[in-house]
């Protein structure tokens, strides 16, 4: 269980996160969304212990991540947006690094790497950015960690790899694993992320499950325009409209449309989701 309470962080005089409180429970894949510069990466680095909160606290299963205790470090994996090219072959890298994660599975690493179409005997410092990212993704998933913090994991991946990533994440993470994935590429991940956290300038706008979003908002893919639509987007085949769900009818959540709705009607959405 991740518990963030009144978290604050700033870079010098520039405040990035202020009074952020949220809880993340086990067994979910959280999508962390937000515009550029709202503090998504900062939040992830605070969660994994790379940064120390300036205000408030973070606990992960009751432990402070910034203490960087080996037991917590071996329970988590932080996958940065830009990963480091190791001067070794992928297989050597996995063998040498994997020993620090008690549940690391080398066979699983080779399997995922093969599914992502990267050769295990290839040197990592000679890989393309996409191949390098895929190697780190394979390694991360083979660690069998309980907590994953992934910053823009699909950045730099080609189209087939994005699908393979989605498949690998759902297939190779255990049911009690908690993933927090920050992304701008919502379409890449909208089928796997649930709940959704939307960060805005120094606050959490939404922390809701897909079921909750669907219960409170209706996503209309028809062509008939509604007067009470909070958001309207023309698409080649018609349009997407988002409006309050007054009938209780179910609809498929379009994460991008939801994100834009939240941004256009922050106060309405915050009131709707009781934040």
């Amino acid at each position: 269980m991740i518990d963030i309470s009144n978290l604050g962080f700033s870079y010098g005089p520039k405040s990035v996160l202020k009074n952020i409180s949220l809880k993340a429970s086990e067994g979910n894949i959280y999508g962390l969304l937000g515009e550029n510069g709202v503090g998504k990466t900062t939040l992830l680095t605070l969660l994994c212990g790379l940064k120390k909160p300036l205000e408030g606290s973070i606990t992960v299963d009751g432990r402070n991540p910034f203490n960087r205790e080996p037991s917590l470090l071996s329970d988590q994996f932080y996958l940065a947006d830009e990963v480091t090219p190791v001067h070794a072959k992928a297989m050597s890298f996995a063998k040498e690094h994997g020993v620090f994660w008690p549940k690391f599975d080398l066979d699983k690493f080779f399997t995922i790497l093969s599914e992502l179409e990267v050769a295990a005997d290839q040197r990592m410092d000679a890989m393309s950015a996409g191949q390098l990212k895929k190697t780190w993704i394979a390694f991360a998933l083979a660690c069998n960690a309980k907590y994953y913090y992934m910053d823009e994991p699909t950045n730099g991946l080609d189209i087939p790899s994005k699908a393979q990533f989605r498949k690998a994440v759902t297939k190779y993470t255990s049911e009690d694993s908690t993933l927090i994935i920050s992304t701008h590429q919502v379409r890449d991940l909208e089928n796997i992320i649930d709940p959704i956290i939307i960060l805005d300038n120094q606050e959490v706008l939404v922390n809701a499950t897909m079921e909750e979003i669907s219960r409170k908002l209706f996503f209309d893919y028809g062509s008939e325009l509604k007067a009470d639509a909070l958001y309207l987007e023309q698409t080649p085949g018609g349009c997407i409209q988002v409006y309050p769900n007054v009938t209780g009818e179910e609809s498929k959540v379009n994460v991008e449309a939801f994100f834009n709705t939240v941004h256009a009607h922050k106060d309405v959405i915050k009131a709707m989701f009781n934040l």
Partner: protein
Amino acid sequence: MDMNQTFSFQRFWTYFKYDLTQMWRNHSKAAILIGGASAIFYVMWLLFSLVFTQEWHTPVIEARVAVFALAFMALELYQVRTYGHLTEKKAGSAYLMLPASRAEKFVSMLLITIVVIPFLFMAVYLLLDGFLSLVDPTYGKALVTSFSSAYVKLIEGMAQINAESPFRITPSTMTVPSIASYIFSFLYFLLCGICFKRNKLVGALAILFAISTVLSLVMGLVMPPIFENLDLDLIDEDTLVRWTQGIINGGVVFSCLCSVGLGWGVWHRIKTLQH
């Protein structure tokens, strides 16, 4: 406090082996270049003498000792690079997120910097030098034999001083400050390497220059009035001996304190490093 979270010998050993592997992987070229300086110098000297004099001349002992001293100095300066990657966002994050405790990472860093690297350098350098001495009779005696005879002469000189003067000098009077200053210099450049993000060597040398300038100024202001008011005729031999021993002992204590201070600086940096 859970000791296993602070230091575990089993995990330390795993980490230490990993750290050594990474060190070799990332710095082997520099290690070969510095460790093989004797052989490189021998080949260059020979090449120049063959080209310009058409005679077989090998480096003279004075030049060989000077090259050894220069190579050792280069090794000291190189410490800004051995763990310099810690200040880089990507590699530094990977280092901090590796599941080993801060204490284990610190001890491994110290062992590698103070023990492994210098001893490996000495072994490689002196073995190569010994090999050259063995295969080329014109090369002269191996440096290691010159060093041992120099040490024997030093001991004899000390015995002579002890017999003929009231001063008491022991081998530790010479070796402790030497060891302390060697540890000091390696730790100093290591600390600068993990503190400065850019221009690590320039920064390290600039600080040394600034400190020595300030110390020179202070000494220049403080010492002359002391000597002006000092009546050397009133100082007996016992006082002079006591003062001299005091200065020597003070120097040893100061060197040790500086090394401990730098060690604490390295520990503090590892503990508080953020990315």
